[in-house]
């Protein structure tokens, strides 16, 4: 579904991605794990069109999307819930969700079905739908960020550190919901520092170090890998 070949991405003179290649197949949950600053978010930003690779290619459903503007990439079916949630603080929960239909919805067209799906996945959001987004708790904001990206009707969902700053209980729930979203037919590329949780949920995983992919395997095998255990799973 998504094939990235030899991506080189720079911030000024600093090379953040040094030839990264990976793929995501339809229906999968794939996780990218790695330390802070390894380049995980850079990969997602490049796929979403916020950053441009200097070299390399990104093929989505067989078509090159490297030159597409960000809104076109969303229109084609790749949505992202960015790191740090980034909900629109001055809009209500429901307005946040509505705004994310921008890629496909003409003015006046209904979006009730999408809204119901999101409220079904995250019942807490329905209760808070008239509340401004800044007033939500961290967990609720993360639900809103993911729910919002689902409003774009994605085929491929990019999740950047959804567990960041959440209590372990909430992380459990959230990951269960991510599994549910995947079972409803959305392919998922998950970036996480919480490697243990991510590998338990995902089908396959990649380990990223300093802008280079150092390991790629089935998630079940990565969990058992001694190097992964030592570096990311606390021994």
């Amino acid at each position, binding site marked *: 579904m998504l094939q990235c070949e030899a991506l080189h991405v720079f911030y000024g003179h600093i090379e953040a991605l040094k030839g990264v290649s990976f793929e995501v197949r339809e229906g999968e949950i794939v996780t990218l794990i790695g330390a802070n600053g390894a380049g995980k978010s850079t990969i997602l930003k490049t796929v979403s069109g916020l950053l441009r690779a200097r070299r390399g290619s990104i093929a989505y459903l067989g078509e090159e999307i490297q030159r597409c503007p960000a809104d076109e990439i969303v229109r084609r079916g790749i949505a992202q819930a960015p790191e740090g949630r980034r*909900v629109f603080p001055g809009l209500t929960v429901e307005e946040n969700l509505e705004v994310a239909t921008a890629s496909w919805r003409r003015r006046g067209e209904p979006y009730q079905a999408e809204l119901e799906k999101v409220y079904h996945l995250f019942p807490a959001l329905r209760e808070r739908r008239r509340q401004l987004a800044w007033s939500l708790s961290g967990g609720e904001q993360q639900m809103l960020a993911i729910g919002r990206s689902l409003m774009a009707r994605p085929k491929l969902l990019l999740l950047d550190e959804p567990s960041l700053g959440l209590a372990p209980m909430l992380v459990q729930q959230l990951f269960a919901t991510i599994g549910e979203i995947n079972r409803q037919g959305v392919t998922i590329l998950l970036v996480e520092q919480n490697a243990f949780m991510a590998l338990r949920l995902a089908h396959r995983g990649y380990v990223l170090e300093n802008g280079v992919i150092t390991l790629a395997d089935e998630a079940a095998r990565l969990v058992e890998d001694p190097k992964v255990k030592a570096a990311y799973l606390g021994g």
Partner: protein
Amino acid sequence: MLQLVISGLAMGSIYALVALGFLLIYVAVGAINFAQGDMVMLGAFFGVTFATMLGWPLWLAYFLSMLLMLVFGYVFERVAYYPLRDKPFLTVIISTIAVGIILRNLAIQDWAWGPEEFFFGTLVSDVPIEVGDAVILPQHLFIIGITVALLVAQYLFFEKTFLGRKLQATAQDQEAARLMGIKVERMMIITFVMSSFLAAIAGLILAPVLFVSTNMGFHVGVKAFVASIVGGFGSMAGAITGGLFLGLLEVFGAAYISSAYKDAFAVLIMLVVLFVRPQGFFGEKIQEKV
């Protein structure tokens, strides 16, 4: 007394409209458009060209002037903002100052409008209304009425329409807006066109009260900037109250103290506010952007 209140509110309405123009662009791109006042001047001069110079009907002059200012807003965004969109906000501010200077200096050329002052007619009656011992200009009431109508329209647009909410989202977090599939470039153009439209209206309804000259916009711009600071930069309530407050202050100051110091009151009150309450009536404390 009533007379002073009405004319103060009328001037204040103009300041509020221009302050709103500042606000739209400030919220969207984080920079102040110092050409906003000169855009008021441009709108008024377009009106003068069609109505006073060519003698066309006033409604047509209004219409064409607003139309031209919509085009101007688009060109302004493409030329003065778009190429600089990834630069620090200071660069954008300097670019808008340059546009203001260029507009003023083009307008004063002999082949353009020159240094004279021009008359511009009113859409309403120019016969003053007498209420008790107060004399009220219909144009003043017209200014207040149009301003209220514009404020209500703008509120409804931002709060009740899909496009309005997309604009809000873009202003609150541009990158997140991009990720949600919002065409951020288009939102920027719409923002600039809207603030140019506000400037056109401010110019057209102000023109019958003042004479139209190349410096009128600059003065109005400075006052509106003061009003923004007094009211609190970045908030709509601040722009409106700041504008009205300044308008009333000027008129009452001129009537009871001295009209020679009319412009000094504005600067004086700004200094007082900056010392006592730097965030203004409604604003949050301005923090340096990292």
